[in-house]
């Protein structure tokens, strides 16, 4: 009986000794896993980022640079400025650009990859930089050049949301018509929201 107690006690002592070690090592494992996880997430995020920069961003920068270079160097920019600057520096002009881009037949054509919006954005940006367009018009201009956003993508976008064919049938015209109302509305909203933007300069 006594031996069994002794055995028990020694057994306990042995297990408690090993459990301290076990606890320590499990804590170490947990810390190691957590640190590894954090590092892994950050590293993967960095990998994704560099991938996006090389695949999407730098190619577009190259494309934009060629256009901007040509437009500025040939003096085409000044010609464009005479045409675009008066349009882009008044609410009426911006609304005209916006309504044009939101016409239900044109908007899906202007949509793909937002290429048109990006090129027009770059052109307007250079004009703002050159002082032809007042900087506070940047905000309404951002909405004026972009009422067609996603208009090329409606069926795909709806399919991603697992929509029925009947929904797509009604949804495509619904979005296109909605843009005719909400596009100009967005420009007006942005126009009023731009009060006080860069006005001190």
């Amino acid at each position, binding site marked *: 009986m006594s031996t069994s107690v002794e055995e028990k006690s020694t057994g306990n002592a042995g297990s408690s000794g090993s459990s301290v070690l076990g606890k320590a090592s499990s804590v170490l494992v947990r810390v190691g896993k957590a640190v590894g996880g954090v590092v892994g*997430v950050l590293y993967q995020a960095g990998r994704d980022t560099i991938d996006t*920069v090389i695949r999407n961003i730098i190619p577009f920068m190259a494309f934009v640079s060629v256009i901007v270079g040509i437009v500025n160097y040939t003096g085409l920019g000044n010609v464009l400025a005479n045409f675009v600057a008066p349009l882009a520096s008044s609410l009426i002009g911006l609304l005209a650009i916006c309504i044009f881009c939101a016409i239900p037949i044109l908007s899906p054509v202007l949509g793909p990859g937002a290429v048109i919006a990006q090129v027009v*954005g770059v052109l307007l*940006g250079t004009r703002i930089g050159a002082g032809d367009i007042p900087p506070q018009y940047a905000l309404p201009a951002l909405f004026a050049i972009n009422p067609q956003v996603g208009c090329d993508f409606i069926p795909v976008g709806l399919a*991603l949301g697992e929509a029925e064919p009947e929904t797509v049938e009604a949804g495509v015209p619904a979005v296109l018509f909605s843009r005719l109302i909400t596009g100009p509305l967005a420009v007006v909203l942005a126009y009023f929201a731009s009060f006080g933007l860069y006005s001190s300069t």
Partner: protein
Amino acid sequence: MYVLAAETPNAEDPTGFFGVLAHAAEWFIGLFQAGADNFVGLLVGIIPLLIVLLTAVNALVRAIGIERIERFGEMAARPGIQWYPVRYLLLPVLSVFFLTNPMCYTMGRFLPEKYKPAFYDSAVSFVHPILGLFPHANPGELFVYYGIAAGITTLGLGLGDLAVRFLLVGMVVILIRGIVTELITARLLARNTRTEGALA
């Protein structure tokens, strides 16, 4: 008179046939040099900040996990006026932030059919206003914002104000867009079912 190496040599412009060629070549190279200067400006001015920001936000999105925002999808499906801001403001903003373009549209699957076009409209309209502060959401279409923002930078003005206002106005616009599109969709759906009924 001594001619120092530091002085600019005032050679005459080349004339004649080779002169024309030389000028043409200079002009041709200048055309692309202007583009190259612009490219360097973009690389140095935008890319470093962008890389750090994208990495941080990508890590954050991974850490939080996408499945947590699916709860909002189920909430957004409820009828009633108090759920409009959830459906056309909170859900699109969260989906665009966490799922990014184009996967954000998959959140529409939690909604009833009649809300799907409006949700799509709302979400797709947010992929550009978010760019000013969170470019990770739509890096392929960065220049919608950066193109215009570059002009502001050229003027030596700060971008923060523009970015925040773009985001806030964008939020108001997607809410309005969602509501308007929902109304139009309801009408079109009703008309389509009527015509189908008449045909049958």
